[in-house]
């Protein structure tokens, strides 16, 4: 458990140290930030491998404010440790991507580290209070990073983003407190106890539905489900690459993770009442954001809409609720995190070189920056669901897992892949291919230092794409006897397990 605490608190303390230190030399600040961001990656990977080897998940539960049942509880399952790995990995890459930040590097890296620590904390908390608090905590540095280091419209975007996320979180808070208060005579915030409680004595149907609705609204806003998404494209367009990577890639999935961790297991009736609407919202998000992305001329906004759109699959899968679909959600969170981070990283680089994000005036950048073009294409192709990259695995599992439950919705979701291919392939062409235009004459390619984080992200993406089994749940899997038999009886893609 010490390890988990280090993963969370090391970046936070280091961030506070950076913010407060009178250190001036940017080189030392950078190195320090990098060092601090590498350690959690190693620790998180270590924890993941241990879990995979079958060690029991470690859980720490320490009462904090006894009289109201609030505790500082940490613990990771396979899913959450994967997300912690993702958070620390993307965090490290974000540090590397902005390694040469010249504007106030001390504050920049300090805030970035705070954000990374907050995200890891949110994913490894087992107490509703800290679960919520860590997420909110990560929003403050996001706000400052966007507002201070962002693009030309950064102030507006930062305020809008924070307002939406703030209000969404408040709604969420209402729902979480509902879960807390309904949990018996001595209410608790400890999530495993809550699940236990609600399993043995479920709430009445109406309460469940209301609570689930509130939680869905709250978590949904955090994930930018249509129509609560309008903060996302603006925010991501204006955010500095590092912040966009961390938020779009990792922090956003908090909403999905939260639904899986709290609402769905605790409120089975509410869930079953909301399954169909949830699936519809998911598909609406996929298609709507996809079509809107088609019309964007700003590269980053397009990526923003793309990121919104891809989260729709997760909602569809959660609505279907089969184990296969659920595993698809896990892979999706990872793969989307990596590909979104990669996309924003390279888009940020091309913006820094070409000084514009408008696709119509860009073109032919591949000539001058082949490495950037390759890496961006990988991110975009991942978004198209190309096999060999992680997103394909995710989408495939989601489609297989959801098709028997919602055939029509799933078919529409498959159409979403066509749409996302359309705008992403268009974007590759508009930005990198074709004849070189004026903006592309004075550019250079990425240096090795700039390539490194993108390589890391791309490599993990390819790794998941080719060997998805290395992250899947190896324990508890048995060889199937006869496929025809279990297809009919115990089909993990056809029976909701949640």
């Amino acid at each position, binding site marked *: 458990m010490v390890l988990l605490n280090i993963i969370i608190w090391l970046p936070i303390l280091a961030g506070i140290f950076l913010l407060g230190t009178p250190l001036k030399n940017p080189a030392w600040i950078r190195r320090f930030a990098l060092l601090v961001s590498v350690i959690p990656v190693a620790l998180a990977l270590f924890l993941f491998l241990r879990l995979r080897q079958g060690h029991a998940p470690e859980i720490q539960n320490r009462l904090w404010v006894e009289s109201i049942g609030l505790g500082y509880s940490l613990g990771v399952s396979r899913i959450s440790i994967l997300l912690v790995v993702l958070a620390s990995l993307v965090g490290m890459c974000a540090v590397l991507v902005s390694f040469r930040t010249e504007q106030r590097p001390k504050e920049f890296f300090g805030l970035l580290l705070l954000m990374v620590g907050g995200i890891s904390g949110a994913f490894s908390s087992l107490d509703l209070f800290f679960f919520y608090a860590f997420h909110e905590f990560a929003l403050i540095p996001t706000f400052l990073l966007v507002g201070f280091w962002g693009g030309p419209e950064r102030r507006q975007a930062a305020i809008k983003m924070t307002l939406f996320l703030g209000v969404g979180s408040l709604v969420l808070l209402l729902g979480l407190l509902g879960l807390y208060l309904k949990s018996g005579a001595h209410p608790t915030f400890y999530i495993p106890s809550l699940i236990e409680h609600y399993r043995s004595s479920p709430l009445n149907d109406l309460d469940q539905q209301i609570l689930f609705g509130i939680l869905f609204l709250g978590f949904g806003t955090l994930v930018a489900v249509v129509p609560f998404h309008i903060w996302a494209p603006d925010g991501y367009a204006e955010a500095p690459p590092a912040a966009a990577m961390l938020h779009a890639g990792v922090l956003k999935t908090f909403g999905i993770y939260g639904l899986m961790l709290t609402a769905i297991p605790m409120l089975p009736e509410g869930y079953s009442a909301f399954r169909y609407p949830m699936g519809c919202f998911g598909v609406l998000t996929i298609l709507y954001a996809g079509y809107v992305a*088609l*019309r964007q001329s700003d590269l980053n906004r397009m990526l923003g809409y793309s990121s919104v759109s891809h989260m729709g699959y997760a909602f569809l899968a959660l609505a279907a609720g089969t184990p296969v679909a659920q595993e698809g959600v896990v892979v999706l969170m990872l793969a989307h995190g990596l590909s979104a981070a990669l996309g924003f990283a390279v888009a940020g680089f091309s913006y820094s070189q070409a000084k514009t994000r408008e696709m119509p005036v860009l073109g032919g950048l591949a000539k001058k920056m082949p490495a950037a073009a390759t890496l961006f294409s990988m991110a975009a192709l991942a978004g198209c669901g190309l096999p060999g990259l992680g997103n394909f695995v995710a989408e495939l599992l989601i489609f297989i897992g959801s098709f028997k439950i919602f055939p029509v919705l799933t078919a529409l979701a*498959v159409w979403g*892949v066509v749409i996302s291919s359309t705008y992403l392939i268009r974007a590759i062409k508009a930005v990198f291919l074709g004849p070189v235009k004026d903006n592309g004459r004075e550019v250079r390619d990425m240096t090795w230092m700039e390539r490194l984080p993108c390589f890391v992200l791309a490599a993990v993406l390819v790794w998941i794409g080719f060997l998805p089994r290395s992250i899947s749940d190896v324990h508890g*899997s048995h060889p199937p006897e006869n496929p025809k038999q279990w297809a*009919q009886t115990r089909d993990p893609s056809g029976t909701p397990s949640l």
Partner: protein
Amino acid sequence: MIFWLIQFLPLAAAAIILLFLRGKHSLAASVSVLAAVANAVLAFGALSKGAVPPLRPMVWMNVGLFQIEFGFVFDHLAKLMLVVVTGVGAVIHVFSVGYMEQDTGRGRYFGYLSLFMFSMIGIVLASNFIQMFLFWELVGLSSYLLIGFWYERDSAAQAAKKAFLTNKLGDFGLMLGILCVWMLAGTFNFLDLAGITQWPPQHIGTLEWLGRSISLDITITVTALLIFCGAVGKSAQFPLHVWLPDAMEGPTPVSALIHAATMVAAGVYMLARIYFLISASEAAMSVIAAIGAITALMAALIATQQNDIKRILAYSTLSQLGYMVMVTGVFDAHNYAAGMFHLTTHAFFKALLFLGAGSLIIALHHEQDIWKMGGLSGKMRLTFLTFLIGALALMGMPGFSGFFSKEDLLAVLYLHNKLLFGIGILTALLTAFYITRLLVVVFIGLPRSAAAMHAQESSGWMTVPLVILSVFSWIGGYEFMGIQSLLPKMQLPEHGHVVMVCSIIALATGSSAALFIYWNRASEPLTSRILIPIREKFYFDDIYNYLVRNIQGTFAMFLNFIDQWVLDITVFRGAAALLRGVGVGLRRLQTGNVQVYAFLFGAGTVLLIWWELLR
């Protein structure tokens, strides 16, 4: 083991080249060519293994009991296709060395080419639908990369995009089809699926629509048609054929390998692979046959009026693919054998024709307009002779490979559907016409440009592959080559000589008409206005442009409008403005006048008391 090697050798080559050897051109080329040749040798070696029992698969992904496997099948179908792919592939790799000699991006080119080989072999050997889909998409990727190889050219980038997206459209159907298969059978495995027609009904699931389950027949029809969508995209059948002619923007060896011999044939291969499924539905079969027929005829018609040498060959490819699909859709056990046979011979002679065209294009410094050529038979004798052999095979001249396969194909059509047979014969006539036109205009007569005047025979890197392929194009159809033995035996009833007579008449009519019209012409003699639709490729591109730009574009614009104006400005900013307005209003009460404050204080108290006590 040998299969793992065959499968992953090209990937290793691609990875090495793309990661480390992008700048080291000769090294990249040698790695890639060596891998391709080694693969061909391995594949021929594997042939001797005879029927291989199902290979133990590896688990690629699992969720509890649910597993997606990664394994290989190596039945007769896979054997034939593997030989074609690796054999033609190796030859084209060698040709590429010569063709790309001057190019500055050679390293990248060979990397992509090896990536393609990896993906294509993956399709051939895939043991289940998911695995096939995986490589299916990867093939699409390598095709995208290779079409857009000269990405600085806008047209190339455009064509690559078009190819990718059109294929994606087909793959949309394929993905749904695969999901339907999962619904039906609960397995993706081809071998498990093969017996599906004999399964007890309770083991078969059906689709549901609006809460009612659909009958098994319709479910199977829908499934088969959805899967066929994938083939329509990849094999460029009507109405998704538009990408293939544009794909000629890629380097010519790529056109030969990917867009003539192997990848576009993957659709036909897949139909053969799941023949048990599509043949279970008569309706699906007739749709497939109809699509094939339309493609064959339409593409042949268009080919007669094209001027770009590669485009003529591209439309010819379309038309021949239409043949293969058409015959697959004729209901009979093992009819796909005719399609596969034609696929094989077509791979040889169409690769040959494209490589010949490539040799011409290099000699003419990238001139592709046939009206700028002429009189090349004397200057490039070897190219001319090999090209001639390819053309004769394509026409179906007796004695050449194309004759045998086309004969089988037409016989099947004749026996089952006279209308399709008529279309087949008409297409054969048009084929003879356009290929003769090509031969006459390019090789006969006087040179019509400076480039054609000074053309020289290409280097040995290019001519040797031409010779090898021309040999196969010539003799590939004979029994002793053993191609038929790799296919299931077709039981064709006796059908006399009608088919042969008809096809020879068609051949003679077509070629003589072309000879008559085009002999010694300096420009296109057929300028009638009736031919405008043909010249304009039946306006398909315009229709698609209209659909994409106007329908989809307008829809997207509408949603974007909603997003920008309704959600963002009206709802979000409107709400913000409203709240701010209320705030301003409230602040108005704050006059700063102390009498007003005292009054409001008192009024508030009174109001409160009234509300609570007197109301």
